[in-house]
């Protein structure tokens, strides 16, 4: 696989990841998503304390050519945001699963996380999407 997909993370159909962390989840863009977007130049973060809703826009990520919403993978309250991205949004391209995380959310309903894709399922999902593109 051309794209890095990490074991233990959960993935959405819009290519966000959620890293479960006792009762919370760290959210970011998958390696596939950052590659498709291209050079990221701007990030708009949610406010700490804001309530986000699964499937609704929680942040905005802009590359040179495109504006993309980052959808919350689960419902919950934002507890932390990665403010370093405001000055260095390109970190998402360089290290999407590490330094490029976007925000942390308190998970209300664990079953929402469980319904997301695991590594093998997400890998298949990417392959299908790539085929459809061609």
């Amino acid at each position, binding site marked *: 696989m051309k794209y890095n997909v990490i074991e233990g993370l959960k993935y959405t159909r819009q290519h966000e990841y959620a890293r479960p962390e006792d009762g919370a989840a760290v959210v970011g863009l998958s390696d596939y998503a950052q590659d498709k977007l*291209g*050079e990221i*130049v*701007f990030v708009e973060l949610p406010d700490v304390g804001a309530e986000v809703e699964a499937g609704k826009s929680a942040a905005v990520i*802009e590359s*040179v050519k495109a504006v993309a919403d980052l959808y919350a993978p689960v419902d919950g309250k934002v507890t932390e945001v990665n403010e370093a991205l405001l000055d260095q949004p390109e970190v998402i391209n360089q290290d999407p699963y590490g330094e490029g995380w976007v925000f942390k959310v308190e998970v209300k309903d664990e079953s929402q996380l469980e319904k997301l894709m695991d590594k093998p399922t997400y890998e298949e999902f990417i392959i299908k999407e790539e085929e459809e593109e061609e």
Partner: protein
Amino acid sequence: MGNVKKTPFYEKHVALNGKIIDYNGWLLPVQFPQGLVEEVHDTRKRATIFDVSHMGEVSVEGKDAEAYLQKILVNDVSKLKDNAIIYSPVCYPDGGVVDDILIYRINSENFFLVVNAANTDKDYEWFQENLFGDVRLQNLSPEYAQIALQGPNSKSILQELTDIDLDGMKFYRFQADVSVAGVNSIVSRTGYTGEDGFEVYCKNEGAQALWDAVWEAGEKKELRPAGLGSRDVLRLEASLPLYGHELSREITPLQAGLNRFVALDKPVPFNGQEALQKQKQEGISRKLFGLEMLERSVPREGYPVMAGDEEIGWISSGSYSPTLEKFIAMAFMDPEVAKQEEEVQVLIRKRLYRAKITKMPFYRRD
């Protein structure tokens, strides 16, 4: 993908892993694996090759060719010499723009026009509607391929492939019927990037050989492919207008700040003359300005420009500029307000971001 066209270089783009998109009915690469930002740097510092075969070509021949062009163009072709090129908007009688084009003068009875891909059919119809006297029009677009070789290394790459003296060719000059790697071509010192460079036109049959030769000659000179994405950013940095953004059916060349290409006092009447003269006298309510964001945010086409609570215009093109490492935009604004204000705001997703009005071009090569 139904009715889309491939240029003769389509397979080259695929082999180079270009990301292909449908651009006005043409399958063209929007970017290559090095990415848009790198493509911009490659063009400014070394050399890039663009497939611009989607551009349209129209030949205008006959005894009345010059008089005919004087009527349809707002610029003055009477001063144009053989082997020279001028840029001109083509206007409707009301001053709205049909297209903006290049005019290559082969001789006084033979001109070669280069038009925007998306406008080729519309232009050709308009050219035909305006015909008079001894003029023969021919839409050569389906027969011609075109590459743009842009960047400081362009000249030395191309010089390896041709006997004509490229050093002696000034900007906006050309030679027709020249051999480039054995392929009969038109070579002009032109481009849409704000960088030194050349555009080479040839018939489709010679296209593969031309590309391969340029590619091989470029290998030692760090030539890389570039796509539509970087082309758009490069032209924005150089503040070159793009039809559909800075010019349109509704936007006149005077509003777009192209006054030096509008020969208002041309001795012969031309399409749009009265309307443009009137606009000049009465003043214009919307004019093109440059903006530089003072807060990080990406100004994009269509975003409103504000002065406090008042909406004073809109962004026509905007992007991150890799060369300047700034966020820049062209915007149509009320010139009265722009004169008074140094700073304005761009409305992006319900938030205002500060921007300053700046001189264009944003980027000019040394």
